[in-house]
């Protein structure tokens, strides 16, 4: 096995860092603490430089179907706490369509996503523990579908052209692309001020052609969507925890108490080291899951392992960082606090560690 990064991958990382360093300064981020957290200029810049085509096939204008590359984008989005929520668009919609839709869909939608058009997904439902089995229903009437249900935690839906919805029907699970003006949106107020919405579908009528996959492959497509979302969300978590760990290293190497820098106290350096270990584990399980999802459409156990590590790392590193910074860690004039909120969001959305441990245990003991 070769763990070294290819040269084009380090180039992606470096150029993204250059862009984000310029666009995500403290002053800029402050603007989005209480406003709609979406930097449209930054999104256009990413589009113009081709970064929205990461993980997408060259024939649609992308830079190649490698999820490892897409992972780098999400890791750096997390590391810089960028005011962009792109997993609904670039992961759920783009990747699922690329793998499960016909050429027509791919050409139309992937092309416009690469150019900066926003799409999003609405998969999760309040008080539904199992996103593979949506409560939302689609009634099939001749060539039309009538969709009803409530979704939530859908990203940047208010500025999305259309929303990918999961629903149950008498043909099984369906993934359907619905125009945003056909649904009712309510903005939710969530811990990291991310632009998340409740999506209400009240007998929404769409053509049968809005189903993005072949007949009978809906559940497979939805399972893939959920898994790749877990993995890419874990990449955001990787960036978030990596930044927190580097803040720990920086602060404890400068702050002096008892006449020495506090990083020289064993209790402090050991706790920082534990964060580093956690981070390395998370990085590796993410890379494994991303690489395998390139060629295998069902890697549930590897996706679960990623998300379990992500949830644990987010929790442990967030509180270690706050603790080792003392009061600075919670002061809103310092940088750390935004990452702590993002960490909780990454930890809980699309399955918590306890929930996923339970599911993994179930898989390991029954899929023999």
């Amino acid at each position, binding site marked *: 096995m070769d763990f070294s990064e290819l040269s084009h991958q380090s180039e992606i990382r470096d150029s993204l860092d250059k862009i984000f360093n310029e666009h995500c300064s403290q002053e800029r981020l402050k603007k989005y603490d209480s406003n709609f957290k979406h930097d449209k200029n930054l999104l256009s810049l990413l589009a113009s430089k081709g970064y929205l085509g990461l993980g997408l096939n060259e024939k649609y204008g992308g830079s190649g179907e490698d999820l490892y590359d897409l992972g780098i984008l999400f890791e750096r989005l997390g590391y810089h706490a960028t005011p962009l929520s792109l997993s609904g668009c670039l992961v759920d919609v783009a990747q699922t369509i690329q793998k499960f839709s016909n050429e027509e869909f791919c050409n139309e939608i992937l092309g416009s996503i690469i150019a900066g058009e926003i799409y999003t997904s609405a998969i999760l439902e309040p008080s*539904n523990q199992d996103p593979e089995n949506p409560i939302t229903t689609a009634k099939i009437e001749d060539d039309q579908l009538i969709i009803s249900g409530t979704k939530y935690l859908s990203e940047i839906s208010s500025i999305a052209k259309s929303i990918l919805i999961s629903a149950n029907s008498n043909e099984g699970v369906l993934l359907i692309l619905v125009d945003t003006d056909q649904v009712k949106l309510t903005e*939710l107020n*969530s*811990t990291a001020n991310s632009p998340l919405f409740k999506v209400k579908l009240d007998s929404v009528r769409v053509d049968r052609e809005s189903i993005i996959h072949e007949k009978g492959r809906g559940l497979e497509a939805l399972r893939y969507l959920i898994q790749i979302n877990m993995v890419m969300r874990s990449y955001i978590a990787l960036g978030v925890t990596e930044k927190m760990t580097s803040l720990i290293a920086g602060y404890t190497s400068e702050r002096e108490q008892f006449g020495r820098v506090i990083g020289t106290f064993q209790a402090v350096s050991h706790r920082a080291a534990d964060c580093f270990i956690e981070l390395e584990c998370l990085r590796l399980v993410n890379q494994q899951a991303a690489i395998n999802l390139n060629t295998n459409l069902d890697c549930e156990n590897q996706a679960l392992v990623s998300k379990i590590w992500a949830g644990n790392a987010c*929790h442990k590193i967030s509180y270690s960082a706050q603790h080792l910074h003392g009061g600075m860690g919670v002061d809103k004039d310092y940088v750390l606090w935004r990452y702590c*909120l993002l960490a909780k969001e990454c930890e809980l959305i699309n399955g918590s560690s*306890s929930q996923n441990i339970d599911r993994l245990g179930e898989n390991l003991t029954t899929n023999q």
Partner: protein
Amino acid sequence: MRTGFPFPFLTTESVGPMIAEHGSEWAKEEIATKILKGELIFGIGYSEPNSGTDLASLQTKAIKQTDGYLINGQKMWTSLANFSDYIWLATRTDFEAKNHKGISMFIVPTDDPGFSMSAINTLGDVRTNATFYDNIHVPETHLVGELNQGWSLITSQLNLERLALVNHGPVEELYKDVLETAQSTKINKDQYLSDLSWVKHNLAQVHSGIEALKLICWKQTCIMESGQLNMAEASVAKVYGSEFFIEAFRLMMEIMGELSILKNGSELTILNARLERMYRTASILTFGGGTNEVQRDIISMAGLLMPRSR
């Protein structure tokens, strides 16, 4: 505290008893009495920009004058200063003596023109303050305890504070509500959230943690009633309680799932968004009131009689 009432427990449970025991006649009559009546609130002025965990290095000074003391300096994290009548202030009064031996405690009025503050907003949406002391003159009666003997007042106060910080009431109340919600939330036709094995596991972990915390708190109360306070045990309560809160909020947020990241005022919130607020405030206790590394030092020295770590 169980009901969520913002009770000024640091004033009543930790500063008040110190003043009642060591204050001047004026302080005992005027201050302690009013604290008991609920008419006074104190902020605690210990930390400074360069003196946090190493508190004994503090530099705020009180200089003896003919008719009292002149105070100058800056404090950090002076919580409640914006509501307080007085600051319980740690100052340096002997500049020649070793760090711990030159500290004295004063009662400083916040309505003095030399007093000012600036707000510090925090992750948990709790405001704290930087406070500034510019040529504040206080009479002799505002000195608490003997001159240069302040360090023992600080450590005694902190022992009381540490216990007050980890009161088990609020977390137990929250646990009951989470349990009840899990038992009444249907996840499908014939199952409730509480039927899931991992939910049971999380609930059991929180429950067993609360049992231990409750007993630690009760035992400490009992020891305090008999007029003693064991340093090691106060530190055990503080380390265990503060680290348990963080785990407990996490386990309960997992049970309530993604709904628990929704903030007060949003649609779809659960349990009045209490979990969303509490997880953000949880970290303060692992370093506030004496960082847990120092508490562990105290436990190994005072509880296990091991040599001082360096």
